[in-house]
């Protein structure tokens, strides 16, 4: 489906995209953004689901299960803490509470 050279194209374009998207981020957002990108790589969940779904041996199933638990933790935890941090940023003029 994604053969070698096409994969490299995707890789290169995605790498530039990642760089450009955050190239001008102000310092005040560094921590939330790190947390946000941490959430985004929680997409590993879909891979872990496929790995567990394909596993047939006991060992493979066990490792796959752990993988899905970890990946779900990455995705959900990453979302919750990012959302909590960003919810606190108030624009000037906006009143807290």
């Amino acid at each position: 489906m994604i053969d070698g050279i096409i994969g490299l194209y995707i890789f290169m374009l995605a790498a530039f995209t990642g760089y450009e998207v955050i190239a001008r981020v102000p310092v005040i957002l560094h921590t939330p953004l790190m947390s946000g990108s941490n959430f985004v790589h929680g997409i590993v969940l879909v891979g872990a689901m496929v790995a567990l779904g394909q596993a047939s041996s006991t060992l493979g199933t066990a490792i796959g299960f752990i993988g899905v638990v970890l990946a779900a933790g990455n995705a959900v935890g990453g979302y919750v803490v990012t959302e909590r941090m960003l919810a606190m940023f108030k624009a000037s003029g906006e009143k807290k509470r």
Partner: protein
Amino acid sequence: MTSPLSPQLAALLVNASYLLTAFLFIMGLKRMSSPRTAKSGVVWAGWGMLVATLITFLAPQIAGNYLLIVTAIFIGGLLAWWTGKRVAMTDMPQMIALYNGMGGGAAAAIAAVELFRGETHATATVSLAVLGGLIGAVSFSGSLIAFGKLQGLIKRSLRFRGQQAINLMLVVVALVAGGFIALDINSSANIVIVFFGLALALGITMTLPIGGADMPVVISLYNALTGLAVAFEGFVLNNAAMIIAGTVVGSAGTLLTQLMAKAMNRSLGNVLFSGFGEAAAVAGGEVQGSLKPIEAADVGVMMAFAQKVIVVPGYGMAVAQAQHKVWELTQLLMERGVTVRFAIHPVAGRMPGHMNVLLAEAGVPYDLIADLEEINAEFETADVALIIGANDVVNPVARNDRSSPIYGMPILNADKAKNVIVIKRGQGQGFSGIENALFYLDQTRMLYGDGQAAVSQLIQAVKAVE
């Protein structure tokens, strides 16, 4: 159990949804990089994740184990939800490290499942699985160590002679074992186990010697590495969403790591391969002068009649949970017509931007908060610089003492203010263990005490001023 759709249609649907997910992720990150749109950014990315997760149940590659998948998602998701909702803002950096480590571990687990399955793969695919597994496992164990250190579970930075050599050896042996797997020279399960054991050990020995002050840079680096590992496993599984999202995080995370290292005036190599914090602490010149204490009542009068006060908060303020009191004091001073600004060093708190999060939590609007470039010229016109819980980031030796380990680090020029008040628990040193010359200056006074109690006293003192 088979999918109700034909495999071709299911695959098309899954891939189309992954495209939508990739779009939502990139737009979400873009929106997260501006304060005005940041809140909606994470929601966009969240929808992307939800779409991808749900549609993956239709993926034709999944042959069974549906119940196990759902169970695992609930276990991991609920645990993370529960901890994520409860964690204090001060502990955010180590929590990010923990969740990031879980992602790395998941990438390594995918690699392990694929390698143990041992179905014939092309060498290139197995190589990517091995490489992603190595990076993911290093990120997993390394992030756990980083978590342990920031959480205070691991107190000491373990260093011994020849540590770099041992790390290098581990890398080489792990790569050789990986090469054996990739080239199918010895494809027994044992070598896969040895390979992952080595990778996990490498993450531990790499992270243990790094001092707490450098930990944010390391966490950011592991974040980028996890992204890369996810992308590599995405190639193995032919999964475009993982390739795109993983690569985007890999490169964005690398840039973020560089920005952080630059803010601390440290190169990445320096962080990873030199022990800073404990080992270098003995270096640096002796400081002349004495520490001069002051009472809260006197500080109250001084601030009440000041034109301009600049508050320099540090991590110590957050640990003492004093940020709410500081905001109360600020409002009191502003009612009296005093101009108050907050000066934030790029690495104040435990990570760049962490202090902004902590002040935002207390309700400080962000137009009162200035970063280093904005505020440094203003210290000369400030009557009072109130240092609360900050130390190394206001140490003038970074400007003028070449022998100091923090020489060259950009600092806040609090020493240029007419009066400097330092709220400090005791006479200890900063995170880097370096004596602070600012505390010994003629215009500096020390207000000893717990941050929260000291600021409460200041509030009373300012209120007492007619």
